[in-house]
């Protein structure tokens, strides 16, 4: 059933129904009308909007799809062209991360599996029909049960109705449903909460309520749980309770750099710090709940000097932390990531949990009632179990859905061999992953933008997944597949559609009216029973009794395998945009690298791009070096998606896999590897991109006493569009960059071009190292200068200054002298060196409101002028001026911390003018007299914090 009738059935005035009318086709020769006429209230030029859920990572952000009507290869259809967060959504409140922004590249990926396939006699895949595939599966299942073998359903994280359906399916078909496989299973956290509270869950951290946040290793704004939400809530807390946020980590992460204070801690010594905090706080009895003696005596108790020596934190820093905890009304500690995925990880997590209980966080900032939905996610232990049963040839049919163990497990070859011990391997997947390669039947999955469904990221939230486009290939949703298999087994003439199944479920759960509301909103918040987190004395005691506290003695080099903000655990690597956008910390785009401490590099005389051979686990891997400031000596970092999985110790108690490879040796090979490092230099040298460091009046606003000028400034009539960027809010997540790429049809130029310095980003994050201690960012985009140096040099008026203060570029007037780019002090103009057109079918995602530039044309940020144009058009209809907040640019829209404010500088009451005239504001390279329209608010110095 197509979505329109479906929605009709739901009685929704289909503001989101498939629209149809006449538009402009690419070929521009034919005009293709619809066969069936359009809905009356919908017409071209107005895109359709759908609410759905992002499935790029387990966070499940609420997503609003902008679908534009286009004729593609003589077929009129609507195509999703932009993804944005749903404003007010409990998870992401309007924002989306870079991966979410880019997931259209997955929807239109040319390498998607396009039709069901089955392995034939001589082991090659051949296209098959669904019926045939199902039949085979049913036969094999029966046969396997006959042989007394167990069939298993092994999938990635599954929530909401799908989870229930999977259970039904497994019951129906006598299949065991295994704990789900996630690389970031947070097993130690779950285990710790199990020990301390008898709740094997990951609580929902209510950062927005905190006034002091201590993140221990948890990269909360990159990959930990829900980065977008965390970033968003950190900002809320900053505004609400003037939050101060400290970060402790053994390595260095973007999160650490963004925290108001960052402490580098010795390897595996987090546990001592937490123990120290517990003990000291209880001694100065500033704990809200005092720990039972039987527990507290089991907690290591050392003098501050010992702790300082163990952790490498100075005593005053330790005291600072203590006082922070003591004085905070609603503190919050989040342990995770690099600090829990290690030998002391479980202990660290347990102490964190104890601290959360003792300081009363569990009553406000640590929320178990809305626990993150990780219950059904297993750990490495479960994988081991699976491997055993495979070893013992107990498995008949093995379903592998939406997960790729062969890629993510260190023992890949072994696992592949073991998989062969099954009768039949069925893969449900959208890509030909290395796991799928090893299967017999491949059932192609629809992208979540082509399918119905729902998701429950955490208790109390139900997200809707609804299609924005019909399946482009012969693919089906997992729900449909399971239902159809069941139906075919029971010999039913036709299977129930998964969307019907959903409706029934929803109706039974929420009733009809509520269901409609949920579909329109895109999510539903449901009340959950409130159970306070109660300390389990016995469990904790038992654990602490035989807890071992490793002390990291060896000073041998250690490799940390960190998550990647761009690729998560590696799954988002297929999105070309994720390689095109620089890694925020290193500004590297394509290819792999190893991050080396600047101190180590100095000692060894290594420079960026020097190749080193890393000896680990008996193999030797080669990486080019990237010198990383703030990284402690002897610690090396490689992102998970850039190195094939390493065998690291697995905690037998929790099944958490350590992220550390110890006793590695690193030696230069003497080669140099060309590596696209986008940043020409990380040193700003007070050039005026960061706020000037003046002694008195630190951030005095320059506008009041302007630089001398020859001519009077030209006048603007109603609007002067401007922007204010708060670098104190900005957390460097690069979501804005991704949003800009998608909104403005920016080109993906590839590695070769990047090596030649030919990236096309209109907006970029620039990291600046200050005296090797801090890394500050600025966000560079066209400054829309009032006295723009680029304008007067254009011989053909291709670029000029609009009355609304925009520094515009008329693409089809440009002859390509590149003079404007030369003359731009901010170097934000981009030249089309070739015809960088996206290959089919990626070109489906082009935004029809923005032209696709061809070779030889200079292009640049226009403050999303197409959005301005629409707003003005609307305003004109209602014959008024554009209101403040009516327009926002793509970058500002997706910012999780609302660091970017766009608006009209002529309107003295607009938010942007207020910020622009605040005495914190400064402008980049102001002394050049370019009169930029972009105003920056600098990062607050941590000394103000302390």
């Amino acid at each position, binding site marked *: 059933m197509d979505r329109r009738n479906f929605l009709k059935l739901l009685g929704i005035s289909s503001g989101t129904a498939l629209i149809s009318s006449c538009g402009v086709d690419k070929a521009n020769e034919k005009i293709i009308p619809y066969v069936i006429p359009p809905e009356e209230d919908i017409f071209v030029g107005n895109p359709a909007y759908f609410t759905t859920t992002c499935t790029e990572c387990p966070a499940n952000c609420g997503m609003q799809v902008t679908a534009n009507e286009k004729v593609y290869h003589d077929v009129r259809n609507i195509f999703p062209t932009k993804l944005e967060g749903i404003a007010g959504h409990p998870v992401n409140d309007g924002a989306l991360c870079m991966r979410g922004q880019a997931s259209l590249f997955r929807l239109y990926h040319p390498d998607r599996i396009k039709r069901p396939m089955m392995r034939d006699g001589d082991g090659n895949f051949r296209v098959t029909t669904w019926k045939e595939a199902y039949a085979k599966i049913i036969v094999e299942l029966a046969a396997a049960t006959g042989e007394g073998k167990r069939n298993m359903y092994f999938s990635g994280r599954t929530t909401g109705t799908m989870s229930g359906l999977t259970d039904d399916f497994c019951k129906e078909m006598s299949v065991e449903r295994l704990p789900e496989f996630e690389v970031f299973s947070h097993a130690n956290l779950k285990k710790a909460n199990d020990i301390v509270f008898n709740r094997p869950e990951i609580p929902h951290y209510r950062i927005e309520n905190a006034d002091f946040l201590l993140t221990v290793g948890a990269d909360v704004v990159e990959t930990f749980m829900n980065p977008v939400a965390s970033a968003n809530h950190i900002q809320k807390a900053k505004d609400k309770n003037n939050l101060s946020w400290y970060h402790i980590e053994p390595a260095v992460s973007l999160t650490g750099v963004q925290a108001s204070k960052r402490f580098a801690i010795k390897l595996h010594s987090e546990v001592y710090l937490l123990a120290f905090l517990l003990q000291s706080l209880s001694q100065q009895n500033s704990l809200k709940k005092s720990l039972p003696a039987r527990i507290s005596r089991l907690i290591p108790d050392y003098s501050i000097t010992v702790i300082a020596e163990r952790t490498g934190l100075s005593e005053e820093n330790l005291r600072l932390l203590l006082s922070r905890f003591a004085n905070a009304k609603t503190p919050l500690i989040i342990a995770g990531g690099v600090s829990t995925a290690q030998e002391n990880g479980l202990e660290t997590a347990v102490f964190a949990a104890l601290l959360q209980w003792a300081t009363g966080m569990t009553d406000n900032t640590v929320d178990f009632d809305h626990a993150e939905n990780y219950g059904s996610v297993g750990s490495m232990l479960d994988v081991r179990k699976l491997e055993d049963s495979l070893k013992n040839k107990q498995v008949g049919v093995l379903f592998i859905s939406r997960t790729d163990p062969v890629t993510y497990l260190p023992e890949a070859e072994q696992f592949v061999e073991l998989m062969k011990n099954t009768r039949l391997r069925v893969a449900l997947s959208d890509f030909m992953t290395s796991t799928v390669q090893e299967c017999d039947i491949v059932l192609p999955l629809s992208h979540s933008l082509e399918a119905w469904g729902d998701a429950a990221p955490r208790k109390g939230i139900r997200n809707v997944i609804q299609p924005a486009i019909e399946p482009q290939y012969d693919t089906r949703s997992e729900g449909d597949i399971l239902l159809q298999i069941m139906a075919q087994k029971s010999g039913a003439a036709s299977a129930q559609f998964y969307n019907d199944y959903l409706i029934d479920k929803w109706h039974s759960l929420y009733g009809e009216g509520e269901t409609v509301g949920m579909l329109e909103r895109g999510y539903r918040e449901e009340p959950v029973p409130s159970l306070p987190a109660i300390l389990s004395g016995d469990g904790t005691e038992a654990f602490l009794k035989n807890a071992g506290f490793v002390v990291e003695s060896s000073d041998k080099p250690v490799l940390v395998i960190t998550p990647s903000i761009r690729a998560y655990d590696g799954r988002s690597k297929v999105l070309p945009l994720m390689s095109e956008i620089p890694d925020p910390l290193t500004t590297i785009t394509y290819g792999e690298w190893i991050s080396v401490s600047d101190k180590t590099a100095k000692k060894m005389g290594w420079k960026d791009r020097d190749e080193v051979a890393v000896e680990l686990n008996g193999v030797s891997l080669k990486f080019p070096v990237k010198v990383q400031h703030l990284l402690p000596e002897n610690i090396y970092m490689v992102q998970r998606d850039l190195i094939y999985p390493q065998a690291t110790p697995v905690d037998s108690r929790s099944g958490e896999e350590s992220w550390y490879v110890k006793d590695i040796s690193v030696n230069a090979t003497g080669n140099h590897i060309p590596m696209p490092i986008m940043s020409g230099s990380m040193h700003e040298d007070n050039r005026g991109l960061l706020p000037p460091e003046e002694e008195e009046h630190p951030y005095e606003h320059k506008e009041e006493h302007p630089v001398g000028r020859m001519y009077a400034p030209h006048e603007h009539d109603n609007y002067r569009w401007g922007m204010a960027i708060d670098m104190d809010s900005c957390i460097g997540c690069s979501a804005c960059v991704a949003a800009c790429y998608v909104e403005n049809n920016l080109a993906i130029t590839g590695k070769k071009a990047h090596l030649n310095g030919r990236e096309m980003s209109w907006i970029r994050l*620039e990291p600046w190292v200050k005296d090797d201690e801090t890394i500050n960012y600025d966000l560079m985009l066209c400054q829309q200068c009032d006295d723009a*140096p680029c304008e007067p040099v254009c011989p053909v008026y291709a670029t000029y200054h609009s009355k609304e203060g925009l520094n515009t570029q008329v693409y089809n007037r440009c002859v390509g002298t590149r003079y404007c780019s*030369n003359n731009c002090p901010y170097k934000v103009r981009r030249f*089309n060196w070739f015809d960088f057109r996206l290959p089919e079918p990626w070109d489906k995602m082009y935004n029809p409101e923005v032209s696709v530039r061809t070779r030889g044309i200079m292009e640049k940020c226009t403050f999303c002028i197409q959005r301005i144009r629409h707003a003005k058009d609307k305003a004109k209809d209602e014959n008024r001026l554009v209101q403040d907040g009516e327009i926002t640019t793509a970058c500002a829209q997706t910012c999780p911390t609302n660091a970017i404010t766009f608006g009209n500088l002529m309107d003295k009451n607009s938010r942007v003018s207020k910020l622009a005239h605040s005495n914190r504001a400064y402008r980049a390279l102001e002394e050049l007299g370019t009169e930029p329209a972009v105003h920056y608010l600098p990062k607050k110095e941590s000394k103000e914090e302390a």
Partner: protein
Amino acid sequence: MKSIEYNEQLERDVLAALSKPSPWYWVALVVCALLFVTGLSLWLYQILKGMGVSGLNNPVGWGTYITDFVFWVGIAHSGTLISAILFLFRAKFRNAFNRSAEAMTVFAVMTAGLFPLIHLGRTWFFYWLFPYPNQRGLWVNFKSPLVWDVFAVSTYFTISLIFWYTGLVPDIAIVRRYATGFRKKIYSIFSLGWTGSLRQWWHYNRLYVFLAAFATPLVISVHSVVSWDFAMSIIPGWHTTIFAPYFVAGAIFSGTGMVITLVVPMRKIFRLEKLITINHFEKIAQTLLFTSLIVTYSYIVEFGLAFYGHHQFEAAHFTYRLLGDYQVLYWIMLFGNSLLPLTLFVRKLRRSIVYLFIVSIFVNIGMWLERFVIIVTSLAKDFDPYAWGLYKPSVVEIGITLGSFGMFFMFFLIFVKVLPVLSVTEIKEEAAHE
């Protein structure tokens, strides 16, 4: 010797050059033509593929092409200098060089004029750079130094051509007298039916003076405009007031170098030793030395401005130019433009043709590098360190550059075979005075 015989002899000597070319001439011509054609096809390739086939990138939007442009315009200048300015100053040694110098000017400007088109991202719209009435009702932006270039260069080409041709008319009339058959017809046409009558000489002399008077400020303005392409920007290393005089001097310097490079072999091949004497060369060598000193002075002043001015970006830039990624080129340039020419203070060296020839080659290289260094280093590292990047010419760029040399020398080779390489009339006049 009676002057009439002397003149007959003179004519024979000069026109000997127009006699049947030797095989070596053909070899040279073919080589140049091949280079030229290669250059053209590479350009076509670039148009079809996009500017990406060059080594240019972000931030370095200009490189070899603009360097070539400035270089060739520079070459052109000394042509005008020698013929026009020296004419106004009644410098006698001029007539040994002026014809080939003027020819050089014309060909160099033709070559130079191509490069602004070559460097365009969308060459096929080059005509948008000219103000012509169009249905769009759009004109060009007269505030843009590139438009100034369009006017300066096209004016320069026209005037130089007229100047050159005017000087040629009486000489073509002489060739006409010697030529036979088809060639005679052609020469008759181009001599416009010159008779040498009183009336003709009367207006001719005036015209020549006026053209010379126009050409002189023109030269200055043209290269000033070229320099303003850079000086009008805000890029450290470009944005400086001394650029105009500095570039003009540089242009004359490089051009003089090129004149020597061209005339030395020409003189040898066509046995013009008794017409182009060592004294002539000494004079031109002095010009070379003089301009070299001016250029060197500018180099020093540049650094002075940057460091004494205590301007952060300028200082950073000039340190980079001196010790940065391109320092080798900079040092070669200094050697060729500033150090080597100093040796010309020595009279002996000044009067050694071979030595002069070598120096002139170094000057050519040095001056090309000067423009390259100025353009590339300034762009490679300007205000925003994040956007810093390096540039190196691609095969296509090098090919097109060689092609431009091919084109220039091809034209010159053709010229020496079809037109008198010395201004016969003027030498006669000169002789009559003595």
